[in-house]
């Protein structure tokens, strides 16, 4: 019984210690990550090209669909 409570104290101390250590490291790591990102932000590809491609594809399909519809209406 005595043993159980002392085990509890150990867990409480190590547990709280781990929580604080973890979040402290996370603060440091987050700071570091943010600094790196802000430094290299300009160099990161913006993927705008890909989006543009997809958009173009969609436009393309719209154009094609329109053309086909027109073609068919003139055929009849």
């Amino acid at each position, binding site marked *: *019984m005595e043993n*159980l*409570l002392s*085990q*509890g*104290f150990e*867990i*409480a101390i*190590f*547990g*709280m210690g*781990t*929580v*604080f*250590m*973890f*979040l*402290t*490291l*996370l*603060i440091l*790591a*987050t*700071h570091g*990550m*943010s600094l790196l*990102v*802000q430094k290299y*932000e300009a160099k*990161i590809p913006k993927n705008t090209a890909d989006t543009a491609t997809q958009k173009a594809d969609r436009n393309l399909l719209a154009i094609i669909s329109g053309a086909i519809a027109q073609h068919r209406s003139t055929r009849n």
Partner: protein
Amino acid sequence: MSQLVALWQSSGIFQISIPQVAMILIGLFLLYLAIARRFEPLLLIPIGFGGILSNIPGVDIAVGDGVLAQFAAMGLDTGIFPLLVFMGIGAMTDFGPLLANPRTMLLGAAAQFGIFTTLLGALSMTQIGVFDFSLAQAAAIGIIGGADGPTAIYVSSVLAPELLGAIAVSAYSYMALVPLIQPPIMRALTTHSERVIQMKLPREVSQAEKILFPLLLLILVALIVPGAAPLLGMFCFGNLMKECRVVARLSDTAQNALINIATIFLGLSVGSKLIADEFLVGATLGILALGVVAFAIGTATGVLMAKLMNLFSERKINPLIGAAGVSAVPMAARVANKVGIESDPDNFLIMHAMGPNVAGVIGSTIAAGVLIQFAG
């Protein structure tokens, strides 16, 4: 004639026991809280209704091949339902405020004191002979102080499945009671001049930071507290799906259909643990008593940590946001805002409180990982 007797004997009126009546009333009371008082209705409606179903005599619903027993076996005993709910919450979480002001994470750490003091409280009760909680049970009770539903359910499904019903009801009830429990403690521990501290508007956070943060968090968990990896892993996965913006359809499903389905099943499964024999025991009263203490202590240590940090820093933190460190997202952050407005109607703290609020989620999963590793 014998058929008529059989019919009468098969009826609920003939078979029902007093404890079952009591449990059905408790189920109705949970529904009342959820519907009329809006206490965490998303979970308490399925839990309450499931609790009623589980105590209907003469039919197997929560045991054997009953449908709720099957749900529980499928996703509660295995941890799948709480993990899916947690993934969905991750997909709804915005780490922006936290990234703008990382040091407020310490508030989310401090508020976890509630978990461990509650664990010690449960063991002390065993010590003085009031209850008889094992270390694993005490740890599962402590996690109520994490103020995070899926985490509490996941931990107790691992460490103390026999207490799951009481722990879940306690966790969700106190989360709903946060607007009543926290303000007196927050007012008692702060001065007026502290409560009117205005904080700087947070900086804008870039998309890249938001994408990298869940990965950073996951790696750090993997290196330091692997026991927390299932919970935090699913949470970070949900968050990454949201922030990366290239899988909008998956993120949308994780935030809607999937989390809703998991919530319905999770709630009914928890309800299946509200069987009279298991719930109507002295231990449940102990759990309810310890639960409110856990919330109170977490609130207090969150506020005190903010005051401590102000001793060492120029950029003062309004200590009210420390109370949001318990988690109970987003209720505790709203409470911080509301108490702040009492003292200065132009001081909106909610944006600042969201940081410690989500840090509290991280903090309690780390605590959960430690408990699973060392109290299991």
